[in-house]
């Protein structure tokens, strides 16, 4: 199984980069990762009035999609059928802990409850780019990395989808419950078969290898 890589973008603690040609550090931008309400305007000259209200997972993924230039890489017609398949190890852990801390209060943090589901964060991506294919949030843990890539390849090679926005997202701003602080949102736009527009080819990432299966995309972004 393989697929064409059309574009990719990455957001991490250091900065944002992508095949759109953007390379910037948060330090240079004088912003905290992963951006503020002004980030979309400053980097992409776009208005996104709700960006500052969405959770960190969604912010990372939306910015990574911008760095990959999803809106121009995939036509509006193609995006109507494009799937999203993203994996996460931490899931919505930061939101879960924040919401759980309010359980004893008179009023819980109801506004953040929907973001305790990672599909909500993926939904923020879907609605911004009108990605109306299947949306799948895969859970991984300690060494399963690449599950979203394998599932994306299955979707493409089975003919169930022609294009998939796949990737990985993990955010935790402070160490908690034994997990270290981290921030990474990476997306890759994949297409079935070989296309002349491809930047590279994704082959089946085997389980249990020491190599980070997302590293090839990160390297393309840089």
């Amino acid at each position, binding site marked *: 199984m393989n697929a064409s890589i059309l574009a990719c973008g990455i957001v991490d603690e250091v900065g944002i980069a992508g095949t759109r040609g953007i390379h910037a550090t948060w330090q240079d931008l004088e912003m905290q990762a992963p951006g503020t309400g002004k980030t979309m305007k400053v980097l992409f000259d776009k208005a996104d009035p709700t960006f500052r209200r969405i959770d960190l997972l969604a912010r990372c993924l939306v910015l990574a999609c911008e760095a990959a230039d999803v809106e121009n890489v995939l036509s509006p017609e193609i995006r109507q059928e494009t799937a999203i398949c993203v994996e996460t190890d931490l899931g919505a852990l930061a939101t879960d802990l924040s919401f759980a801390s309010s359980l004893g209060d008179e009023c819980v943090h109801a506004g953040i409850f929907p973001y305790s589901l990672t599909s909500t964060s993926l939904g923020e991506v879907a*609605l911004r780019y009108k990605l109306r294919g299947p949306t799948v949030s895969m859970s991984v843990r300690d060494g399963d990395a690449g599950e979203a890539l394998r599932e994306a390849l299955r979707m493409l090679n089975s003919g169930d989808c022609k294009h998939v926005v796949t990737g990985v997202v993990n955010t935790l701003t402070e160490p908690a419950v034994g997990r270290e602080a981290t921030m990474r949102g990476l997306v890759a736009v994949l297409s079935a078969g070989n296309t002349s527009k491809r930047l590279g080819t994704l082959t089946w990432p085997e389980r249990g290898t020491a190599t980070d299966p997302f590293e090839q995309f990160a390297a393309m972004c840089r």
Partner: protein
Amino acid sequence: MRRPVFVAGRGAVSGFGIGVKALVDGVFAGETALQARVRTGGYDVATSVVGEIPEGAIDAGIAENDLPRHTSLLAIDEAFEEAGQPDRSAMGIVLATTKADMSGICGEGPGLGSPMHLARQLSQQLELGIEPSALSCACASGVLGISTAARRIATGECDRMLVIAVDVINEFILKGFGGMGALDPERCRPFDEERRGVSLGDGAAAIVLSANEQESIGIRVAGYAGANDACHVTGPDYEGLGIGLAATRAVQHAGLSMADIDSMHLHATGTRANDKSEAIGLGNAFAEVADKTPPAFGSKSQTGHTLGAAGGIESLLAIATLERSEVPKNVGLENSNCDPRLDLPTTIRKLSRANHALKVASGFGGVQGAAVFSA
């Protein structure tokens, strides 16, 4: 060329107790498992009822965070029994849930709301030969889990897969939905003009899928698909575009026409927005072939909304419409104020033809899933 995918075994745990028979008999008899809260009675939320697993059906000493694992194993036992204790050495599991084990977030433990944590536990305990997968697609998890597992069989990657769809109600979930004002204070009434919100419930559904027709219970997973509203992350598209797309795509994936669908199990949460848009979306999806949809029902007024388990539990009920050649009544529905093209029986409806049943599901994030089961 896609290989056919057959259902080989089923298991369930629900508010009706342990077993698929208890679930199906209860739902088709028009009963409800929504009762006064007992296990969750200490949580201060604005609803009097949930569909808890009945007292006595499971060991009262099991910690709430371990209930997803425990109920999963009960459902799997039943499914393996019906499947004739299939060879597990070449079987994989797809776990579909919202959060599963909340230990470490609520109370002590290593779960951290990670579906993969539970998937690994189950896979190791059952000694399954293929590495587990886990997905969290909100309330569409169960249907999308079936799709994910079926795809692996259809493409020849595996010959057998186990799907487990599970969620157990806890303080985190109850207060989350309560805080959003989404709970009906009493039993929910999907599609009724007086509906006020959702009722929640415990659930686990296990489905063994196989490439081998000889292992089949006489049911095939004929088609499956997903979609996204791409409209709002917690509210539906008011035209029901996403659910209509998922339904249409699943029917096409099955190689069928919308006119071939004989029965339909709906998402039917009981919230004003969901039911209204679901009726419009499905009315539109069937509009080219009929003035009315096939007879359709929801069961959340009977089991409660079992969240990540719902797609699994309700797929078993969709299959039951084919086996019984009838569609149960929509419990709690007296007067619908939704799109009248959605055919919602208020008494049990005999089917003149029972070949293909459609199951649809929706979730936070605009996520939609649909599956077609064929006899």
